[in-house]
């Protein structure tokens, strides 16, 4: 366990600023987005009206790109309000986008 922590620490030390948070993308998604985009959230409920309900939860999507996510977050989309940089910083948004677009990049 100690060894893994050291490896992680080295990786963080050499990554660009936005990527330092990328490892936290999942945690940040749950903190900042999941209230609406988990199974019972408003966002999931509304997306399920417009698409296959099986992939209405964002974590089940494979077609999300970082650019699209950033645009949706900062300009809003449908009934989703846009989100300020005070609430989700650019670095946090990059980490969340990296996490949600993982399927696309795999």
């Amino acid at each position, binding site marked *: 366990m100690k060894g893994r922590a050291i490896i992680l620490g080295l990786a963080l030390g050499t990554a660009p600023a936005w990527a330092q948070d990328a490892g936290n993308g999942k945690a940040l998604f749950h*903190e900042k987005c*999941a*209230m*609406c985009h988990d*199974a*019972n*959230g*408003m*966002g999931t*409920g*509304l997306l399920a*009206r417009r698409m296959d309900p099986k992939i209405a939860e964002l974590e089940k999507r494979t077609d999300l790109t970082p650019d699209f996510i950033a645009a949706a977050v*900062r*300009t*809003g989309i*449908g*009934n989703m*309000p*846009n*989100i*300020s*940089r*005070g*609430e989700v*910083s650019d670095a946090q948004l990059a980490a969340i986008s990296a996490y949600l677009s993982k399927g696309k990049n795999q």
Partner: protein
Amino acid sequence: MDPVFPPGASAATFDRALKAFGGAIGADNVFTTDQDRDTYSDKFAVNEAGHHPYGGVAPSSVEEVQAIVRIAAENRVPIWPISRGKNLGYGYAAPELSGSIVLDMSRMKKIEVDVENGTALLEPGVGFYDLYDYLQAHNIPLWLSVPGNSWGSVIGNALDRGLGYTPYGENTSKLCGLEVVLPDGDIIRTGMGAMAGSPTWNLYRYGFGPSWDQLFVQSNFGIVTKANIWLMSAPEQVKGMDIEMDRMEDLAPLIDTLGALRREGVLQQSPTIGNWLRAANILTTRQEWVKDGGPLTDSVIAAIRKTFNLGWWGVSVRLYGREAITNATYPILEQAINAIRPMSIKPAVWRTGDPIPPTQGGWMGVPMTFPLQNANWFGGRGGHIGFSPILPQSGKLALEQFLRAYARYREFGMDPQTSFAFGERHLINVNAVLLNKDDPAFMKRVDPFLRALIKDARAHGYGEYRTHLDYMDTVADTYDFNNHALRRLNEKVKNALDPAGILAPGKSGIWPTAYAKERRA
């Protein structure tokens, strides 16, 4: 969104203040792009031309809040504090006075829980989900009382007198001692917190001498940077029923029955009676029932109700506490409800250790956002705006108020989402007026509709408990005893505490002398 300056301010003044803000909290936390302005604007705005923020600043500590306030006062730049800014239906994060800078405390998220005493000391950025996750992660048997939109701040909700659905549902009454930054940058603690190091700050609300807590609720006298809030002990059992009543007129006996049980203490929860649309608009959209924006006729309403098994009115009533006590109380509730001939009763029971179904979470302190699906009622860009008068706990008077409002809904071509939330002695008649932002003709009818509702209510002595930015002056004007004596007092206090008038000018209709001309007729 283009930049707008408040009256009397110049670009040079703002440049100087913004540079100073950056020096105090880091330039990375000062937000003044067009997109930043958009993100702090009102998503559900009826009047798109009003309440434009100049930008935002996001401190991470009380010391940074103090620094911002001092800079704002020195430069006479108005600031509009928000906790998390999720005040949907009342203005979101947007300021009353255009050109104000939003002081965004989203980043201030410290949580300290006193498990033994059942209290939490919270910063404004702590959302219901944050606190819920914290309690779960630390296995702490305390429950929240969450509103239908739990996206927002726990403290922000209590400071705007928001509601939950458990016995702790009147959230503002659960505040116990605040930390407040005053408009000159000084910092105070109220209640027992006025004694440095007191272990009773979170236990006794009033302290010694005048108690100031409610003076910082819905006001612009200071910025609450910490607050203690009492949390409910997780009960052994929650037992109750979901009740549907068939006819519009059934509202009266339902209110009288629940009100009597509430005043007697049989019922300790704050139940909310909702009409059929309050339930249906989460489940469906209007266009599935009516084409081309036609009216919701009685036959359409009947079809929607039949599909989803809804009464004209529905209410979820719950008893909380020891199993033996709730089991003993339930038959009393059942007998009282059966006596008013409900359309249906669906019993519900939860015991410690049972999973909590997502649709039941609201009665058990689990945060939720799905009720916000009502913003999609018209299928496109939607929203809602609140109209929420306080009524006596009388079935007759509440039904009369509803019928007057319902006539106005029909006159202006609006769909009625309405509810009646019980307090200990009062009702709050919360109307979420559903918006169709894709229909300009519809949107033009919203403002005259709301003004008619406010006027009608005032004619019967009813005033709103909370309102959207657009109507803060209008509603404040209805509180008119002795030539608006309370407003005159509020503004005396405002001018004494905030001579530069920089803190949330116009909030709750309280205008400092510096911006007195901005009051709307």
